[in-house]
């Protein structure tokens, strides 16, 4: 059937193994903006210095046809080695890390610490009037913690965006 009837959106977490070279991130981001695709999260870091490989994790959404198109467009970039649709290809793990600063005194301060404990956030910096918590987990868990901190002194949030990997023994190889 024609494209116009295919309207169900889905989320996709896509892992892309690329040459670690200048301009590769601009290529990927330019592709998304130029073709009007959504980016909900994008992370990148070198994963194999010896073989000059970086891994990009992109969370996006669209119709099946659009997501297939995104993968095909990524795959035809010259410095791209592999593209993997983690959402489609089986169970996967997705995690995000956050540093969150909460300032306050007295009961607010104690409440922040108790909630952090319940959420398994770690204190990585403390002053008499503030904490910085480090927290890792699924995006929704991080969202929930931010909402809880808001009324008790939320000052600043820094999040990494999603990194993801497939479950099981298989691996994404160049």
């Amino acid at each position, binding site marked *: 059937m024609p494209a116009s009837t295919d309207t169900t959106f889905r989320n996709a977490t896509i892992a892309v193994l690329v040459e670690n070279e200048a301009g590769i991130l601009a290529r990927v981001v*330019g592709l998304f903006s130029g073709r009007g695709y959504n980016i909900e999260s994008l992370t990148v870091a070198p994963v194999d210095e010896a073989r000059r490989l970086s891994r990009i994790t992109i969370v996006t959404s669209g119709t099946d*046809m659009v997501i297939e*198109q995104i993968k*095909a467009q990524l795959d*035809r970039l010259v410095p791209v080695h592999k593209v993997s649709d983690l959402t489609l290809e089986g169970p996967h793990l997705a995690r995000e890390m956050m540093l969150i600063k909460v300032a306050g005194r007295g009961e607010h301060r104690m409440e922040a610490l108790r909630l952090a404990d319940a959420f398994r956030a770690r204190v990585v910096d403390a002053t008499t009037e503030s904490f910085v918590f480090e927290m890792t987990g699924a995006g929704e868990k991080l969202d929930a913690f931010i909402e809880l901190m808001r009324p008790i002194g939320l000052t600043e949030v820094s999040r990494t965006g999603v990194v993801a990997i497939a479950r099981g023994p298989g691996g994404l190889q*160049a």
Partner: protein
Amino acid sequence: MSATLKTETEARTMNGAEIVLQALKDQGVEVIFGYPGGAVLPLYDAIFQQNAIRHILVRHEQAAVHAAEGYARSTGKVGVVLVTSGPGATNAVTGLVDALMDSIPVICLTGQVPTHLIGNDAFQEADTTGITRPATKHNYLVKDIGKLASTVHEAFYVAKSGRPGPVVIDLPKDILIGKGPYSEAPKTAHRSYRPMTEPDAGQIRAAVKLLKGAKRPVVYAGGGVINSGPEASRLLGEFVRMTGMPCTNTLMGLGAYPSTDPQFLGMLGMHGTFEANLAMHGCDVMLNIGARFDDRVTGRLNAFSPNSKKIHADIDPSSINKNVKVDVAIVGDAARVLAALVEAWREEGAGQDREAIAGWWRQIEGWRETRCLQYRQEGSIIKPQHAVKRLYEITREMRQETFITTEVGQHQMWAAQYFGFDRPNRWMTSGGLGTMGYGLPAAMGVQIAHPDALVIDIAGEASILMNIQEMGTLAQYRLPVKVFILNNEYMGMVRQWQELLHGSRYSESYSEALPDFVKLADAFHAKGIRVTRAEDLDAGIREMLAHPGPVIADIAVAKDENCFPMIPSGAAHNEMILAPGQAGGVAGVTDEGKVLV
């Protein structure tokens, strides 16, 4: 012996400019189209000191890229461009996007300010790799002379393999001056870019099964068949004839299937023939080879060929299921796909429903009887269609190797409709980007590659002015290109849309204050001819063709002629507008359609 040679090559140290030229020679380059400037002076100095590679000095960098495109499209080789930094590179951008949209292999060497000045807003500095990233298939900024030779070799591989396209290599001046080692093209595969060219056997079988069962099949072939090389066109002919199916070509694919063959339906799409578009609309199985379901071809997507199973073969997986969802997807090079189809058909093709296919042909013949390209040439005013048709007929009589380029607009569509092509690589037009000013420089590139051939730029009076400066290049290199202007004193396609969609309000589409093209030709050391009456048309064409040098033939044609058939934007294939006086469906343009270009 070979080991010694290899060590000698490895030990060769040259400056960057010499490395670039050596790599070009090793890649088989014979011609560069370029324009000098400060940042590329070292390369021009190296060019001066050798004779293996010829440099053609254009008059504007955009023209250098179009010339390289014309060269590439008429030879199947990679076209090479050399421009300076800053404005040299930005002027080339239109040409690069044109080559990207039409999948033409081009290498564009751009000068750059020295590496230590990059980012300083130095004189004639532009972020060339940033600007050309979405304008190219790939681009490089060379910051290490040790990687210069390998980068040039890789660029050629990227430009011509898979779906071809333009590649920019940005060359800082210190890299061109510095000394470094030369290395030959690597024998090993590219680290990450390895396009699939061999089709999957299962998909070929699935395609043949669908085609074998078809009662109303159609083959729709595009530029991918041309890009794959002449063998692909030969195989397309073989496959179409062995299956007895009708075949239509896209604008980019003209020449892939012989226009004079009875199984050819003509071009399809917005200005395609009645029979081609209705065959696409009514078919039950469609085989698309090397075309991309472009919006000019499909018309309104949700009404595009509603009852067919679709097979799509393309070398670029991202072209498949982009606009139109297909039933069988084949990733591969057109020639290999066609070879596999021919072979599979020989083995499994028997058992076609010949009766149904004969009925399908009867239906097609009925559509053909509409004679959608018929026009009436009466009186002295020259119909533009007639001018192209006579040009075609007279050049055919001459039996000379003929190449046609065009600018963009009505004249381009008339050229596509009335000039027949029986072989690939003879037709050069700006399809995807629709770049006015393409035809003259492209013709230059074609003529450089084929010095003895007849090269004609079918032009409009507005488009031709966009790169008219290249008349100087024609004169300098004695390139006998013929510029055949259909002069209706309007940007004709703009005028046509204004007539059909905007209440005949001809906003800014009149070609006011045109030059005297005969005097203009004279000023550029060319011959100028002006024809204003139908009875003088043939003589004018013959005079143009007989002249050994470049000619501008200014043909005054009917001013208000529209190009038909036409599928208005937002309409379906079966809602074509035909020329007045022809029977057929007539559609109004909806507001949704007006939004489309």
